[in-house]
């Protein structure tokens, strides 16, 4: 390959060309601005990991005052919607049919045991194991309702230690607060990897790559002009998402604009590098988009801690998650919204992201040679 020196004239010409193409291609705007909004709306309104008003049934087998009082507590709870007091047998049928998600059985000896010191007044909670998440919620919240009812019944002296939960950063435990910052990471992955995965492949497919390669332009120069416009587009889309998150969804924003910009910019480096690499290797838009979805989008969705907690995954999948760049964006992104600028943590994550970027770009440049076959 001839050693071509950098030319500002060529660089500017390619930048102009790339920008014009972005402006004229409606699908770019769709992916950069419309799709993020749809995602945000989905995560903001439609998907919620908070259980409220789970339908349960109560089988009240005791008619004592404590039993009635406990049943009342369940009925008043904001977590549960009690469908009625019936026998265990009827409720079991409803549970099987999926009309209720759990049964609370207050047994016949509940009031007697409650009044007798030294005895434990037990209740039974039956849940639908086919829906493990919901089952865990029902069990957990039922225990909570019972505990607070018990606390109200007994004189304070009887409870030497009262446990008070306090959730930091997200006192309302609204899943939207951590889902929305997370979905910004997903959006950035999409713009960075999916859009750029198409750009070089498109040049190959339309036969323009051959004509471009026959001009004096250097290949690193060529790649740089592919990356820069999408970098700006990515930042623009991030800004849009952040504004929507703050003003439409009311997610608190405790960090700074500088912090979020630095994080987004650092994340775009590996993301664009990965897209470029996919594009340079596949040379085909369809294959490129599939590879980008599988190698960037899905891992960012599943393995970044966005939807599923990494610490509860099998060990080898946890190990795998270390090579997913989004893993290093989501925690600092959630911090910048909910906690504030934590520069120490940001710096570590930014360094890792830039490291990934360097690897991807090095391979992408090596893979884009001035050769047809």
């Amino acid at each position, binding site marked *: *390959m*001839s050693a071509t020196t950098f*030319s500002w*004239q*060529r660089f*500017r*010409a*390619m930048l*102009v*060309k790339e920008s*014009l*193409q972005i402006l*004229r*291609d409606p699908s770019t705007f769709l992916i950069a601005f419309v799709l993020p909004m749809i995602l945000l709306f989905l995560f903001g309104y439609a998907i919620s990991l908070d259980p409220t008003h789970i339908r349960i049934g109560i089988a009240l087998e005791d008619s004592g005052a404590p039993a009635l009082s406990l049943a009342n507590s369940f009925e008043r709870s904001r977590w549960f919607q009690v469908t009625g007091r019936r026998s265990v047998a009827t409720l079991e049928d409803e549970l099987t049919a999926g009309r209720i998600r759990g049964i609370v059985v207050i047994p016949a000896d509940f009031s007697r045991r409650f009044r007798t010191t030294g005895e434990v007044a037990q209740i039974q909670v039956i849940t639908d194991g086919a829906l493990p998440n919901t089952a865990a919620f029902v069990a957990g919240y039922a225990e909570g309702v019972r505990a607070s009812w018990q606390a109200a019944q007994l004189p304070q002296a009887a409870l030497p230690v009262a446990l008070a939960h306090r959730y930091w950063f997200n006192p309302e435990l609204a899943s939207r607060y951590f889902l929305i910052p997370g979905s910004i990471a997903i959006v950035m992955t999409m713009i960075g990897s999916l859009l750029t995965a198409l750009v070089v492949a498109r040049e190959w497919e*339309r*036969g*323009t790559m*051959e*004509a*471009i*390669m*026959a*001009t*004096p*332009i250097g290949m690193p120069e060529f790649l740089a002009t592919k990356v820069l416009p999408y970098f700006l587009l990515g930042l623009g889309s991030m800004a849009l998402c952040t504004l929507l998150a703050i003003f439409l969804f009311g997610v608190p924003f405790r960090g700074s604009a500088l912090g979020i910009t630095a994080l987004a910019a650092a994340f775009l480096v590996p993301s664009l590098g990965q897209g470029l690499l996919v594009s340079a290797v596949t040379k085909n838009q369809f294959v490129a988009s599939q590879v980008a979805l599988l190698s960037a989008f899905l891992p960012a969705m599943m393995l970044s801690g966005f939807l599923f907690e990494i610490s509860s995954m099998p060990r080898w999948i946890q190990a795998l998650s270390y090579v997913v760049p989004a893993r290093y964006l989501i925690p600092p992104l959630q911090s910048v919204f909910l906690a504030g600028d934590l520069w120490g943590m940001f710096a570590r994550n930014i360094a890792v992201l830039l490291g990934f970027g360097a690897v991807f770009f090095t391979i992408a440049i090596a893979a884009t040679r*001035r*050769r*047809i*076959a």
Partner: protein
Amino acid sequence: MDAPLACARAVTKRFAAAGPPALDAVDIEIAPGRMTGLVGPDGAGKTTLIRLLTGLLVPDRGTVEVGGVPATAQDRSVIGYMPQRFGLYEDLSVIENLSLYADLRGLPPAERPENFRRLLGFTDLERFRTRLAGRLSGGMKQKLGLACALVRTPKLLLLDEPGVGVDPISRRELWKMVRDLAGEGIGVLWSTAYLDEAERCDTVFLLNGGRLLHAGPPAELTQRMDGRVFRVYAGGTGRREVLERALNLSEVSDGTIQGASLRLVTRTQGAAPTVDALQVPAGTRIAPTAPRFEDAFVDILGGGPPGTSTLAQRYRTIPQSGEPAIIASGLTRRFGDFTAASNISFSVGRGQIFGLLGPNGAGKSTTFKMLCGLLTPTSGNGQVAGFDLRSGRAECRQSLGYMAQKFSLYGDLSVRQNLNFYAGIYGLAGGVQREAIGRVVDIFHLQSYLDTNSGTMPLGFKQRLALACAVMHQPPVLFLDEPTSGVDPIVRREFWTHINGLVERGVTVLVTTHFMDEAEYCDRIGLIYRAEQIAAGTPDELKQAAAAQAGLKDPTLEDAFIALIEESDRKREAA
């Protein structure tokens, strides 16, 4: 002669270790100020050679030099390269494409206005400065591609099949532009499968199957054919049978139909075929005629195929009647406020070949698709094999065999699977299907390829397979859409031998083509331009009409085509 601008010495390039090389020890030289032709059928290695010259491929053996240095290290600001697909950005305008390539090749900004003015002037694209390249017609895209390659006057201009898929008018204009450039001292390499273009180059390198068969002025090769080419004025009706007999004679190496007459090439000089041997009426005029490059090309490849079509021999005889096999009456198709075909009317008698000719975008394909039942006419109607286009679509389609441009076969199915599939969709089953498949496999020599994926076969075999699929159910009508685009003259001759044989069996053929030598095989031609049929008649009638209008002497069909279209433009402007 000046020192060469570029050369390749003993270059060999292989893409698959096992297969034959794409280029096998090829030498070429490109001199400044000359038109150098790179000629050969598809798959000959033309594109590979050009890519080696651009430095985008590296040879396995041999050297490729441009401007005295290896091609991979050449100064890319002084070569102009137009790839087969032009390399244009369809979502950029004409002027944006030009500016991009100007900057990429480092054209000094001061020279830009003058260069752009000159290029837009001579490509006649000034009017379309702000039009997106994707909205240009094929011919205009090609001119813009050329302008982009020339934006900074190159020393070496490499053009990869600039004439493919472009109508004769655009092809001729492009040729003239490039010829003028060569006159200014640029070295031009023009790659082509059109032998009439090759004939006009200063030097020709003839490639076939990766080997160089000839290097030198085309006339050198053509001269060898002196005294071996004859025209037989056999008269319209029996000419196909006469050609069959002629090609079966041992002394005739090649022959084609030229309107009402035949063009025959003999194996030895001066020995004209006799009236007796051809079994034509005594007094039939047989006269020597000037050889052409194509005669020499076919001769160097060992002559054309024999004249009898085994396909036709084993085809059923189509019952004849006075009824036309294809009728188009006032076929019109509009897309929104754009009229793609307007009031097209013709009829084709049974056992005739009818050709639809016209520039790109004139409305040929639209007419063709309406007759196939793929498009519903906005108004007008037609018949195929006696079935009405509107009420009997299914019967229409069942009674025609359709061979599409670019071989619409399934490339990742084997030959056998393709044959089974097409037999199935044409309703052949059981023993009939086995018999039909066995027959075409035998006729087209497909045995050794039966389990090969059809996409990986040589082009000539793909072409045979496409024809095999179209005729398996022995339809009375055949529709051929640019059937031999890109295939070499030998395969094209074999193809037309089959078609001529089928026509003798009573099959009716409708064909669209850009190749004027294919048009010569037609009994009648309809010339379509700007959605209207502007002329119709036998090839000879069209030539005579053009001769009368434009004052041409002994015009070729291409001359006639161009003259008739220019005449139509003049009338339109006058109106």
